[in-house]
């Protein structure tokens, strides 16, 4: 028997997972087809809603009319972001912050990154130039250099814990063991810290991160915060894992490490996708579909010298026609028209320029999103994921009624 789902979501990143959670909470039978670890695993774990101005939801009004945020009301966006906050609280990875206020978190470059909702392990992350920080790092950790932070916070200091060969991932796993935590604590207590706050790369364990943070703060009698790292990013992976846990609890079927090989359509409907699997391909039937495969980095869009393609459904893609104008002259500031590339959608997040009734699009694959330029990646994923899910629900209800109607006739 081939599985039949209410909704099949292609793409298991932030947008796809948030859509799945909303649909799952509404009692729908959902499958996610995910090709690999999504971009959220590479991210800081912080939710950038719109990194301009002090109030991201207010600043949405100043975006160009083409930006996908402009398809949604402030109330809907707020509701979606609050949904996210409640999911994270339920999954033991509480976030702090308000959708109406941007804040700064300290980065490994010593800069203050503008973001909105942040994991509680980073709550004390806002610093000023006179903050006295004690930065802890680990010998041989490749992508963390306290010197960057010290050059901006001159009254700070740093110390290095020798944990043997290590990576961010291995440290997170080892922090969850009592022995490691104890040896770290006794070393840290010997470091004679007088600074106001302690900062260390985001490696404080996986699910126990908050507990571990509390233990260290209790022993050292001062606040501590994590600094998000370059990939592999424990903070980003925690976020991804929490969302996956939630989706699985809601009965979502996750086809992990699978890509779609063929799409079956009949008239104005997508009926099924076939996914590659060991042994034989699996055909997955759905009443409705959501495409949330990401942009270029995520793999939803592919570019060549000839142009840009959407790789699963071969939907029409908007992109600047002249390849030589895809990128601005300078790397920075990031004025690169190619960031506009993506799928143009209507108010229901259905792709435009193609006659399909049961397909919806969410996340950074949306045209004109410019997630790097505006700093709106995870925020867009959350709200457009929820928006696509709510359009899906409306569609499923309408088609069920329509079906019922036609049956009674």
């Amino acid at each position, binding site marked *: 028997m081939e599985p039949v789902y209410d909704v099949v979501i292609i793409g298991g990143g932030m947008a796809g997972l948030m859509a799945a959670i909303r649909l799952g909470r509404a009692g729908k039978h959902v499958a996610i087809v995910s090709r690999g670890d999504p971009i959220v695993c*590479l991210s800081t774990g912080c939710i950038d809603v719109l990194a301009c101005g002090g109030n991201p939801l207010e600043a949405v009004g100043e975006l160009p009319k083409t930006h996908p945020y402009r398809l949604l009301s402030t109330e809907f966006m707020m509701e979606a972001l609050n949904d996210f906050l409640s999911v994270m609280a339920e999954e033991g990875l509480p976030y702090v912050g308000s959708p109406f206020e941007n804040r700064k978190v300290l980065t490994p470059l010593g800069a203050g990154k503008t973001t909105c909702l942040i994991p509680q392990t980073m709550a004390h992350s806002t610093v000023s130039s006179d903050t006295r920080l004690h930065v802890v790092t680990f010998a041989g950790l490749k992508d963390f250099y306290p010197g*960057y932070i010290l050059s901006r916070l001159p009254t700070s200091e740093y110390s290095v814990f020798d944990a043997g060969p290590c990576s961010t991932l291995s440290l997170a796993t080892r922090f969850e063991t009592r022995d490691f935590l104890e040896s770290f604590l006794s070393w840290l207590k010997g470091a004679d810290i007088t600074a106001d706050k302690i900062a260390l790369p985001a490696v404080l364990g996986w699910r126990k991160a908050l507990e571990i943070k509390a233990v260290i703060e209790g022993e050292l009698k001062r606040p501590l915060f994590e600094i998000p790292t370059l990939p592999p990013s424990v903070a980003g992976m925690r976020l991804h894992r929490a969302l996956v846990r939630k989706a699985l609890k809601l009965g979502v079927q996750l086809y992990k490490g699978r890509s779609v090989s063929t799409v079956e359509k009949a008239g104005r409907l997508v009926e099924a996708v076939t996914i590659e699997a060991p042994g034989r391909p699996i055909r997955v039937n759905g009443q409705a579909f959501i495409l949330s495969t990401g942009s270029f980095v995520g793999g939803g869009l592919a570019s*060549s010298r000839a142009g840009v393609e959407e790789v699963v459904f071969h939907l029409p893609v908007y992109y600047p026609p002249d390849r030589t104008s895809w990128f601005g002259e300078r*790397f920075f500031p990031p004025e690169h028209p190619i960031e506009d590339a993506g799928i143009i959608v209507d108010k229901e997040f259905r792709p435009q320029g193609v006659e399909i009734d049961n397909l919806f699009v969410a996340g950074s694959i949306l045209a004109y999103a410019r997630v*790097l330029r505006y700093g709106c990646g995870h925020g867009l994923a959350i709200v457009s994921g929820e928006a696509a899910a709510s359009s899906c629900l409306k569609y499923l209800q309408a088609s069920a009624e329509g079906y019922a109607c036609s049956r009674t006739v």
Partner: protein
Amino acid sequence: MPVGRKRWKGPLTGSKGEMVTRTDVIIIGGGATGCGIARDLALRGIGHYLIEEGDFARGATGACHGLLHSGARYVVSDPEAAKECIEENRILRRIGKKCIEQTGGLFVRLPGDSKKFRDRFLENCERVGIPTQILSPSRALELVPQLNPELEEAIAVPDCSIDPFRLCLLNIVSSRRRGGVALIHHKVVEIVKEKGRCVGVKALDLFTKQVKEIRAKVVVNATGAWGGKTARLAGCDVPLTLSKGSLIITDHRLTNMVVNRLRPASNGDIIVPNEAVCVAGTTSVDVPDPDETRLESWEMELLIQEASRLIPSFASARIIRGYTGVRPLIKEECATDSRKISRSFKIIDHENGLISIIGGKLTTYRYMAEKMTDLVMDKIGAKAPCLTAEYPLEGQDELSGYPLSKRLADLSDIVCECELVKREEVEQTVNRIGVRYISDIQHRTRLGMGPCQGGFCTYRALGIIHNMGRISIEESRYILEDFLQRRFRGIRPALWGAQLREEQMVEGMYLRILGMGEG
């Protein structure tokens, strides 16, 4: 091996009280020619200062194919230049083993390419003394399996691949060991004249903004495409034709031999394997200004198209970067096509203490340096024979990270995964040369030369420098932004497919993870 007789004499005080340094010879320009002259002077015991505006090999030296010509390329159009090439090719293979890979080269004749040209090619190679071997298509395909299988035949010649950065650095080793001084990131802002004679230069340290005055008996202008600009500082003229050539780099080696098209010199008919990558080029476009080095999109298309004729898989290969160099060619009255201008060189004695050298090519740099140094020796009334062909380049055993097998032997604490550069090497480089630009570290260690083009390891290199406490936040910001902008300039023409994807990821990393550009 001889050691220097004359040492740097230390700073003296000039007429107006400013610090003045005296030496015998000033060389302006740190390309292969300038560095070659420095080595030659050093081996003849003559004190000298070399002044370079950027890093070594900044101009055409660093922006060429990295091809040590056998001379075959010029054998039909310019047999004299071809003869210089094969002679120097033999010498360099002897003295510079560690910065040369003896790949051998093929001249490939495709359907439609002139048979008559091929006959003249073979005839002239014989006359000039370039050894050749005619290969059947199947033999050629055994040597380079990726070759266009439709080839008619291939002719093997002793082309090699050469690392121009290392070549410059090794020449400078000989100079430094004998008291020579090389100032990089110093711009010559004035050629000092007294009674109509050039007696020295004022050089601006581009980092500290301090001006140094250096005086010498002779000033040598070895600034390649900038030769005209430099000569004008002394009120002199150098007749140059500037010809821009563009090249592109793939992310891996598609051939282990140099591959040339057997036809009169044209666009995009040479592919050179270099370390882990391949370089294909070039174009030839006359430009008015040596700083005009934009790679046009038509050049990119043309180069891919032509390279794919020789090696079909080039069409789908990942291009990681493009770059351009400007050839300083000798201006000829009636030449309409700069490809037809001789690749030989010319020394111009301005008879006022300034001597310029123009034209030539990387392969003949040593010979050019020898001829120039002979003239300089005459001018300063010193006598010593040229020894640069007699002794191997010094310092080859200490070459950082070389060869690959050495790098593979120890993989701990790698900072640059693409090129296997270790933290220790970065630290050593920083300690040795100070820190000014990330590119200085790149040239000396190959950090950032792979597919990500420094996207990841630049942050690490700069982090190491930070941890060494060497740098202020302003310097750090400047270095990082300068590097990322320059890097982007090279990558921009090649942004599609995998390279575009990687670029967007690197951009996301700097903007959205590291918060670059934010307070």
